[in-house]
């Protein structure tokens, strides 16, 4: 396709992304390299409905002068990326030199917010992504074998976990798994342990979040795979059957290879979404036992003091993390692309 035609076709889409993603991205990068000006503090008597007290406040005029002189703030280079709230290089090297066992070093590192969040984020991504693909495929294969009449309602029901807004979906599930809820009581009955609570221990909280992640992710994988199954060429399958291939062998050697690109697509989207896990942690009130890069960003932005530089740095680290995770997929796409004739 000539450059000119390409340009006009892509223009509206590219313009939208340029304005609303690329420009903000640049400003996020700039923001992550700066920190706020020194805040000039003054002490004065402050009063309220509950009495007066000597208190500290920001000298707005003096601070505003500093701000006007350099609106972006103080240039901090990669300082924010390296501080304790993010990569914590100083703390890591200190932990390295003052601990004498891996265990001690590891527990020191896990006490740092970024690594704590990264550990859960990676565990979540690593557990949920493959399970979503596996169960999504299994459900797709199962639904594909159903009689035509029940296929439609089955597809609708299968989409429900994705349709119901996580805001309420997780709230209701949260009550169902409560020690006094229907699922919580059910589990207590099954495991014969009346004290069992999914909310109390870190391990069970993680498992609950993983389960929710899989439950919520299956519909997407299912829809894509189910459609893919419709395109597997009948002739190839029949040829395989004539050659005496069992059903499992047909799936393993015909269906799965044919759907290769679909797995790539689902893996790509799922890796990216799972790496940004946020809603279940909030929905299940699991902040005591699990934090993710996204919850760190929300925490920075939505507190009483919004910390834009810190949030910007964590966002950039998230983007970099996603890029690293996706590298294998990207290399594959690059090869496919180069095979395509100009």
């Amino acid at each position: 396709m000539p450059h000119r035609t390409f340009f006009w076709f892509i223009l509206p889409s590219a313009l939208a992304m340029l304005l609303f993603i690329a420009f903000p991205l640049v400003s996020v990068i700039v923001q992550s390299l700066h920190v706020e000006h020194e805040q000039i503090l003054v002490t004065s008597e402050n009063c309220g409905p509950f009495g007066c007290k000597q208190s500290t406040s920001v000298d707005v005029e003096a601070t505003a002068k500093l701000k006007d002189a350099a609106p972006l703030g103080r240039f901090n280079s990669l300082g924010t990326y390296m501080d304790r709230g993010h990569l914590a290089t100083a703390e890591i090297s200190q932990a390295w030199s003052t601990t004498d066992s891996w265990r001690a070093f590891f527990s020191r590192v896990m006490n740092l917010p970024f690594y704590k969040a990264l550990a859960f984020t990676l565990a979540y991504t690593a557990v949920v992504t493959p399970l979503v693909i596996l169960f999504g495929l299994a459900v797709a294969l199962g639904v594909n074998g159903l009689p035509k009449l029940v296929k439609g309602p089955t597809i609708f029901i299968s989409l429900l976990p994705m349709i119901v807004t996580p805001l309420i979906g997780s709230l209701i599930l949260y009550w169902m798994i409560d020690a006094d809820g229907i699922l919580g009581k059910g589990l207590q009955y099954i495991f014969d342990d009346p004290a069992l609570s999914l909310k109390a221990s870190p391990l069970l909280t993680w498992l609950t979040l993983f389960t929710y992640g899989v439950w919520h992710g299956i519909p997407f994988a299912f829809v894509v795979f189910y459609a893919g199954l419709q395109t597997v060429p009948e002739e190839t399958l029949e040829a395989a059957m004539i050659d005496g291939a069992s059903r499992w062998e047909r799936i393993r050697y015909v269906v799965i290879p044919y759907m290769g690109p679909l797995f790539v697509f689902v893996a790509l989207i799922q890796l990216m979404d799972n790496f940004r896990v946020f809603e279940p942690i909030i929905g299940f009130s699991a902040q005591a036992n699990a934090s993710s890069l996204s919850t760190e960003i929300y925490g920075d932005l939505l507190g009483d003091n919004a910390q834009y530089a810190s949030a910007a740095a964590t966002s950039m680290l998230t983007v970099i993390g996603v890029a690293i995770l996706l590298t294998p997929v990207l290399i594959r796409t690059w090869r496919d692309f180069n095979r395509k004739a100009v």
Partner: protein
Amino acid sequence: MAIASKRRSTPLVLISSVLVLAWIVVAAFPFLWTLWGSFKVQGDFFSKADWMNALWGTRTVIETGAPFTGAGYEGAWIEKEFWRAALNTGIIVFFTVIISLTLGTLGGYALARSGYRYAFWLLMLALVFRAMPHITLVSGYLLPFFEWNLWGHIPTTIVVLVAINQPFTLWMLHSFFLNIPKDLDESAMVDGCTRFQAFRHVIVPVMWPGVITTGLFSFLLAYNDFTVTALLLNQENQTMIPKIASFLGSTQVEGNVMFAVAAVVSATAPLFVLILFFQRQIVSGLTAGAVKG
């Protein structure tokens, strides 16, 4: 079509049926529980005393005199005017899907037909864009939007949703167009069509299945969005999900959780109709599209 539906052994049929049945239970049970519970009072549906209260409606009988109550629906739809939010969501979702698909179809087609390196890098860049956490983007919009008086309006939100959704739409439609044989539009061009004419007269008629499938995902994104709509719309333009969140109350003040539950259940109903309506297109759409990731 279906994979060797002929001559399937009984154990296999059994296993796959059991599996599908198990999935249906797992997928539908929380929703059915919610549907049932939406006709109870909060003390029953979210009971700390005994979960079976939700079945028998113990407190519902005490508080309303009957085992079922429509108080949640009445409160959400009439008292809190949830229909306004539903209407706003309808407008936003409709335009977001239409515009997303229009831009995405043109862009995806170009990306699928261009063999130059920059097309690849554009696709990669779109992925990087998609990796940005939405909250970071949205909090960056706030200052300029307020400054330029763009904040709070429905069109602004539509444009933002379209833009944020573009990377996914581009990727999915690009994969779809890769599957449409090149010969189709190229032979049209040999016959003297311009690229755009070829696109309009040859590609558009065969692209609907893929477009509708991509539309389903665009739809769900706009429909379920919280971050963008909660932070970019003012109260009169509020959509369903932030409205539902507002029913939940805050740390200090108790909310009306049952309004939220009723609202969620009623918000699912149009989707049921929609999916049954588009079901064949969705399936046949994916049939042709999205196959080359």
